[in-house]
């Protein structure tokens, strides 16, 4: 049977990393990691998995390849079991393989939790493999570069301190041509919410900031954005395994909101960022609950609609389907609110199957898309099941309220010739809403 060893992909970061390792060094770091950071969860999962193989069908990689080495349990078998079996004393090449499995063949989407009777959290196990790879310095080049950016700038894309306010002012200026009274309020102490985004928005997708400002303007809400670092809610350090940088980024984000004395944080349409802010980094920082409540755009738009703050000129006529992003559905249960928002906006919604908590991942999340060009094909070919699922809906518009999902789905749509286009909720609301004079 084929294994990860039969499909290795050259990556500068991984190759350079393993070049500096010896079995002894790997063992030392592995043992320190297990003693220092692994507890009852890892021990239980390692010991009780009965290798029944039921989780196979959970994984989009397996469903796309039908190759047993892609099942969730096979990924654990080719990484963590192997390490435990050898007490961590493995050849550096094994770490290369572990890294490729952990960073590029698992999206940490947690779908397999719906398949394992014992509730084994494969995503957690793979995260620990990534943590080990980080500690060994064996991380894919592009995601590592992103983690470096987080550490140096507190944002994902090396956006410098002047570029951020400059971009917001530019977007404000642009939007004032359409909405003369519009403001993008910077550093307003005591506003109802701080709006935070991911760094690709000011870098490449400024229209998303424009649209959000237009929607907030039309809805007449009290909001602000910080002019200082702490504005980026994304967090690739979480996925590269650098927990310390993950925590530093999130601390800056939360403390910015605390300094602005806002009631809560509203986050743009991003899934992994939500996971970092809502579920992961707060724990490392010692906060059981969030020091400032965190609301994803889907929920915020739902509130605006409930309060009658968004009025439409018309509904979107073409049929649409809904992609449920893992990190806000399995990660936050927003499936009903997402549907209510989409039904409010669109005439005709065609559900894909399976959906809601059981939806297939976009295959871009969990940091996989951030591993860059060398692994692009892994996540596209590895998700033909998604292409089939999309095709079966027969519609041409796909609503996906998550940046990574957009990236992943667009690649799949183009590769499999699906004749679909993806939309954020913000795109639809902006297009359909009554715009103030």
């Amino acid at each position, binding site marked *: 049977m084929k294994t990860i060893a039969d499909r290795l992909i050259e990556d500068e970061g991984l190759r350079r990393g393993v070049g500096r390792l010896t079995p002894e060094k790997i063992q030392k770091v592995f043992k320190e990691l297990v003693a220092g950071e692994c507890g009852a969860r890892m021990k239980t999962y390692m010991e009780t998995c009965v290798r029944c*193989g*039921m989780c196979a*069908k959970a994984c989009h990689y397996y469903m796309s390849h039908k190759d047993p080495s892609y099942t969730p349990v096979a990924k654990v078998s080719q990484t963590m079991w192997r390490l435990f079996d050898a007490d961590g004393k493995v050849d550096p090449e094994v770490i290369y393989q572990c890294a490729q499995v952990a960073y590029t063949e698992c999206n940490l989407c947690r779908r397999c939790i719906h398949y394992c009777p014992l*509730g084994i959290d494969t995503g957690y196990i793979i995260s620990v493999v990534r943590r080990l790879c980080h500690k060994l310095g064996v991380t894919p080049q592009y995601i590592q570069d992103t983690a470096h950016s987080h550490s140096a700038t507190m944002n994902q894309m090396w956006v410098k301190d002047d570029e951020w306010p400059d971009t917001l002012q530019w977007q404000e200026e642009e939007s004032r041509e359409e909405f003369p009274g519009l403001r993008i309020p910077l550093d307003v102490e005591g506003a109802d919410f701080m709006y935070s985004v991911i760094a690709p928005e000011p870098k490449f997708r400024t229209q998303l900031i424009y649209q959000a400002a237009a929607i907030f303007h039309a809805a007449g809400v009290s909001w602000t954005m910080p002019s200082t670092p702490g504005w980026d809610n994304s967090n690739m350090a979480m996925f590269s395994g650098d927990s310390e940088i993950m925590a530093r980024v999130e601390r800056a984000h939360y403390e910015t909101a605390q300094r602005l004395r806002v009631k809560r944080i509203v986050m743009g349409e991003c899934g992994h960022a939500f996971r970092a802010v809502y*579920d992961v980094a707060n724990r490392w920082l010692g906060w059981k609950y969030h020091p400032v409540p965190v609301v994803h755009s889907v929920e915020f738009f739902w509130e605006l609609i409930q309060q009658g703050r968004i009025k439409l000129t018309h509904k979107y006529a073409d049929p649409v389907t809904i992609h449920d992003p893992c990190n806000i559905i399995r990660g*936050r249960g927003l499936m009903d609110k997402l549907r209510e928002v989409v039904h409010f906006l669109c005439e005709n919604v065609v559900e894909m199957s399976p959906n809601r908590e059981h939806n297939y991942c976009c295959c871009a999340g969990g940091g996989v898309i951030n591993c860059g060009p060398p692994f692009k094909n892994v996540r596209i070919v590895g998700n033909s099941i998604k292409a089939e699922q999309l095709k079966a809906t027969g519609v041409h518009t796909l609503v996906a309220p998550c940046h990574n999902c957009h990236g992943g789905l667009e690649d799949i749509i183009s590769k499999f010739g699906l004749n679909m286009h993806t939309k954020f909720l913000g795109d639809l609301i902006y297009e359909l809403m009554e715009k103030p004079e």
Partner: protein
Amino acid sequence: MHALYDLAVGPLAWLAFAVFILGSIYRLMSMRALALKKDAAFVAYISWPHAIRSLLHWVTPFGALGWRENPGVTIVTFLFHICLFVAPLFLMGHIVLFDTFHGWSWPALPDGVADTLSIVVVAACAYFLWRRLSVPEVRFVTRSHDWLVLALVGATFLTGVLAYHRIGDNLFMTTLHVLCGEAMLVAIPFTRLSHMLFGFFSRGYIASEFGSVRFAKDW
């Protein structure tokens, strides 16, 4: 052989039950201590209502996505586990032993029913054996440990069935059955069979995370 049988149903049985019970308590308590010490940021979210709600789905055949998507495994798994517990606990032969040694007694299943249940367990083991050999995603992750635990369970029930049907030397078969059963009991706290101890907690934990933090179902 008689001496061995006496040893098996006497001191060895005591030993097996002691190891099983004390070992299980030790494993559970030490795992709890480890969780409190090392997993504080996760234990903090345990929510029994969410755990119980999820467990009710998972102990119902086809009550969870994983069960529905794997119907064959589901049917066999439920039959296997039910029979695995019911057959030995309510087998007249076992109750008689307890009555003889301890004076404990409880209602027994008719022998024919208990026999059928035991045969179901053996058949289920054969099914699991077949899966391990020929289903690629199972074979890929099967290790010697998995063969061992399957063999322990399979041998215990197979020898039980053979002894009941008086196939082979009865004393030998019965002695072998008792020894296998004891080995299985001893193995429970210390092998993959410990999913019997920890499975409800690992499911309950992730159900708590899904229920109380992520507001999503985990079945």
